[in-house]
């Protein structure tokens, strides 16, 4: 299996606090990885580092062998990493379908001039984007909401829309930050299916932060446990479940 993303010695410091330290990690093509750990362990911070929102104070990030250290978030997204956010960040006042179209922006180019002059490339481009966006929405059963203002969607649908928008950027690697937060068990079960489906259909790798162990243990092939910014454990769901350190720091003993 070819490695897709590789970090070595990755770290970032906020003031005196080493939020992430010596983080070494590799994810292969098509893999579904889980990233778990106590609150404040640095999981979201790692997502921020991978997507260029924060600049690392040490270490390297390589995507397909290309360094991401000096790249802007925009470039990184265009190179193939997409993400969702722990606190939903949709374009609230835009319609559902427009949210997805923003994600499609980079892959469906027609010039500014052709949109002003209404050249054929404008009509063609818009038509293609519309088609593609509807396709993506249908994956999540969001088609019927296409023209609804994003902020008017129920919470669970908003999370799905965020994933659809991320997918629209045609990523090689999708980062999901607590996609099941605020969902009830039924919705979570649906989400699990969707994630599995996405992975197959779009043939991408997924890195997932989640506190819902049913979901993590249910679909991840490998899990990385983070504690105080460093890797505490690494392994298959079963290995992680039975790792006493992880139990002590994170899982707790299920009664």
């Amino acid at each position, binding site marked *: 299996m070819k490695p897709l993303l590789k970090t070595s010695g990755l770290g970032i410091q906020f003031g005196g606090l080493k939020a992430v330290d010596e983080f070494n990690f590799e994810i292969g093509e098509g893999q579904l990885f889980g990233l778990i750990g106590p609150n404040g362990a640095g999981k979201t911070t790692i997502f921020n580092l991978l997507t260029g*929102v924060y600049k690392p104070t040490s270490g390297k990030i390589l995507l397909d062998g290309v360094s991401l250290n000096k790249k802007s978030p925009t470039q990184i997204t265009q190179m193939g990493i997409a993400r969702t956010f*722990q606190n939903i960040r949709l374009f609230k006042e835009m319609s559902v379908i427009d949210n997805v179209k923003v994600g499609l922006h980079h892959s469906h180019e027609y010039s500014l001039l052709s949109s002003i002059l209404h050249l054929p490339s404008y009509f063609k481009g818009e038509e293609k984007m519309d088609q593609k966006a509807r396709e993506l929405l249908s994956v999540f059963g969001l088609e019927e909401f296409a023209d609804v203002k994003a902020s008017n969607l129920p919470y669970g649908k908003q999370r799905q829309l965020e994933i659809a928008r991320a997918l629209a950027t045609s990523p090689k690697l999708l980062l999901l930050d607590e996609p099941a937060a605020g969902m009830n068990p039924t919705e979570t079960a649906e989400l699990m299916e969707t994630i599995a489906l996405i992975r197959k259909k779009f043939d991408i790798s997924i890195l997932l932060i989640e506190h819902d162990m049913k979901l993590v243990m249910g679909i991840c092939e490998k899990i990385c446990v983070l504690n105080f910014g460093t890797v505490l454990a690494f392994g298959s769901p079963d290995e992680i479940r039975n790792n006493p350190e992880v139990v002590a720091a994170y899982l707790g003993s299920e009664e």
Partner: protein
Amino acid sequence: MDFINQIINGLSTGSMYALVAIGYTMVYGIGKMINFAHGEIIMASSYFALVGISSLGLPPVAAIALSVVLTAALGVITEKVAYKPLRGKGSLEVLITAIGVSYLLQNVFYLIFTSSGKTFPDIMPQGSFHLGGLHITYITLITLIISGVCTGVLLFFIHKTKMGKAMRAVSEDAGAAQLMGINVSSTISLAFAIGSGLGAVAGVIYGAKFSLINPYIGAMLGIKAFIAAVLGGIGSIPGAMVGGLMIGVAESLTISYISSDFSDAIVFGILILILLIKPAGLFGKNVREKV
């Protein structure tokens, strides 16, 4: 020596800007709105003091106190009538209403007092004293002392008292503040009252310093002070103080050593440079939004 004199000149004007800037900053902090009418509220305070002294024959201290009270009330009324109905509708919407209020105040005072300047009585000791080779007017000294004291008291209030902290809490999340039992409406009114009251102090200083007031003096004073507030990091009280002093000194120094023709352009240029280096102003906490 001339250099130091120029700095003192600048500090004196700057401390007046600072007092006005603090009003902007307080209101901004709590209402997330630029109270564009703040300059006009200060203009009003000058007239209040003038009427107190000239028409009612009050002694200066009483007239100043009257002006502070009336101005604070004016600030609170403005908030209740014009801004409160728009709360939560976006800061730009309130900005426009504030512009309307500033026109309104200008014209009300214009219709009452006409646009020709009124001379402000000399309520502060006139003249100047020498200190080493320095030449300092009493007004300069008094201005500096008053604004220093006001800022100090205000800082203590905001950071050390419960009401002050409540004010900061409201400025962050009014809904959550209500859940603490904080009365949001009265807290906002308090911020307007304090901001306007401090402005009244500046208004009286303005009158004493420049002796002539008209209904339009608030506009430029307001803009300069607004710039000072932003330069210092809007929302930050020490920032407003430092920003005000810096604008004053920068003005004074560019006029005397660079060019009087381009002084405004140069001061604005400095402002742009500083903000490009420190995008949240000098004292603004550049908290990266947590993604």
